[in-house]
């Protein structure tokens, strides 16, 4: 392999040997240390083979005393390729021009990538750097990355670090946004009851407790006040923090009918087609003979090498249906109504498996066509909710 690559780099020729003592000549060439390869017997008196170009002249003396004639039938390798290329001046000029243009164009920014921004949009950053003279098509020598970084940091206080790097024709702007302290922590205020309940546990972290275990509170009552006295007896106005657990009640209503309407398919079906060619389409087949039906459409469109053809055929299968009223047993209706009530509670954010100390009470109110179930659950949860002073 290495020899072949070397032979290609230095150039080799394909020679035709014609005569009667070809084996003797091959032996003489081999004895001289001239490697021959791809030796092929074409006819009884012709052999072709390949030999490095530099050995060719040394073969002539080996022909002495033999009735063999040699001729070159092919030239291959890099020197011959270069020689042929040099004859095509337009190609060379084109290549040189191409390289120069490529080199010239690689001195500009053609792509801008921005990473790490969430609070500030990409467009804002693009606009800002455009104001600084950096946009797609700007020469790399026409802007200073450090200046762009500083301008972005000044313009957007949300950024704690900005890195501007150009690699080839790609400009990458990496920003790190400042993690702002939570606004809530800066606010002063009380913890109030989010909903009414019976207090079971109070864990104050900061502030003055205004209620006691066993108290019944209603929505909006102050549980822990933000005003408190510090260790020096000085009145402080801060942010109340803590947990106040209470027994609270949630209620939901679920309903279910004693009958329901179901759709039943008959065995009658009908098929027609819609053929679309570009923007125009027409239907093929008879109109639907049923008054009540469901339709199932299947689209057929050919793809050629990833491209969709403009011709589509849609097959519509219509199934005739009728509606039947089915009765639901009372017990099943009750289960359904209860389940719907539970669903309402779950949608309100109450997880059924977390209601450990709950009491479920069912109120069955029957009327003519169905029943209604009221569900009240009791749950222990943190009802403390921060309310800022303004």
């Amino acid at each position, binding site marked *: 392999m290495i020899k072949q690559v070397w032979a290609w780099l230095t150039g080799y020729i394909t020679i035709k040997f014609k005569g009667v003592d*070809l*084996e003797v000549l*091959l032996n003489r*060439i*081999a*004895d001289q*240390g001239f*490697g021959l390869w791809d*030796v092929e017997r074409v006819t*009884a008196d012709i052999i072709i083979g390949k030999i490095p170009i530099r050995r060719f002249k040394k073969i002539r003396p080996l022909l002495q005393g033999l009735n063999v004639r040699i001729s070159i039938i092919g030239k291959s390798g890099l020197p011959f390729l270069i020689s042929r290329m040099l004859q095509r001046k337009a190609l060379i000029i084109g290549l040189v021009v191409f390289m120069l243009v490529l080199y010239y164009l690689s001195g500009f920014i053609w792509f801008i990538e921005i990473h790490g921004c969430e609070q500030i949009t990409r467009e804002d950053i693009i606009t800002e750097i455009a104001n600084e003279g950096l946009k797609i098509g700007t020469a790399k020598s026409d802007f200073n990355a450090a200046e762009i970084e500083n301008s972005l940091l000044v313009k957007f206080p949300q950024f704690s670090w900005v890195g501007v790097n150009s690699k080839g024709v790609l400009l990458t702007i990496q920003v790190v946004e400042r993690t702002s302290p939570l606004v809530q922590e800066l606010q002063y205020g009380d913890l109030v009851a989010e909903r009414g309940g019976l207090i079971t546990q109070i864990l104050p972290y900061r502030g003055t407790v205004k209620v006691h275990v066993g108290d019944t509170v209603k929505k909006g009552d102050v549980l822990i006040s933000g005003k408190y006295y510090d260790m020096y007896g000085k009145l402080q106005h801060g942010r109340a923090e803590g947990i106040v657990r209470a027994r609270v009640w949630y209620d939901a209503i679920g309903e279910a009918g004693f009958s329901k309407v179901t759709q039943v398919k008959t065995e009658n079906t009908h098929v027609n087609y819609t053929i679309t060619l570009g923007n125009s389409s027409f239907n093929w087949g008879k109109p639907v003979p049923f008054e009540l039906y469901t339709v199932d459409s299947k689209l057929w469109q050919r793809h050629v090498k990833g491209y969709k053809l403009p011709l589509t055929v849609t097959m519509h299968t219509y199934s005739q249906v009728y509606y039947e009223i089915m009765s639901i047993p009372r017990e099943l209706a009750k289960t359904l109504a209860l389940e719907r009530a539970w669903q309402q509670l779950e949608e309100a954010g109450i997880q059924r498996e977390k209601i450990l100390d709950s009491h479920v009470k069912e109120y069955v109110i029957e009327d003519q066509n169905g029943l209604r179930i009221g569900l009240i659950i009791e749950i222990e949860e943190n009802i403390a909710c921060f309310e800022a002073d303004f």
Partner: protein
Amino acid sequence: MTNSVSSRIKKLIDFMDLPSDVVLELPRITVIGNLEILVENHRGIQKYTSEQICLRVKGGIMSVNGRKLAIKIIEKDYIRLEGIIERIQFSSQ
């Protein structure tokens, strides 16, 4: 007499555990399937057709028969043959 000398030399080589191909200049032949054959220490080509290639080796002729035989590369003491090899035969001169 010659055979007797060769036999003694062979025994000596075996006793000393020397490589026969180096000491006796015997051909070292590597056959890859029925597609390729490499012969080191050859002494030239005697006959070359696409069905038969005869190589001179020490002590005789090595004949390779087959189809579409060709010499992939030939150097002073190394030759590589390619084609569909059907038979390899040795004969004394």
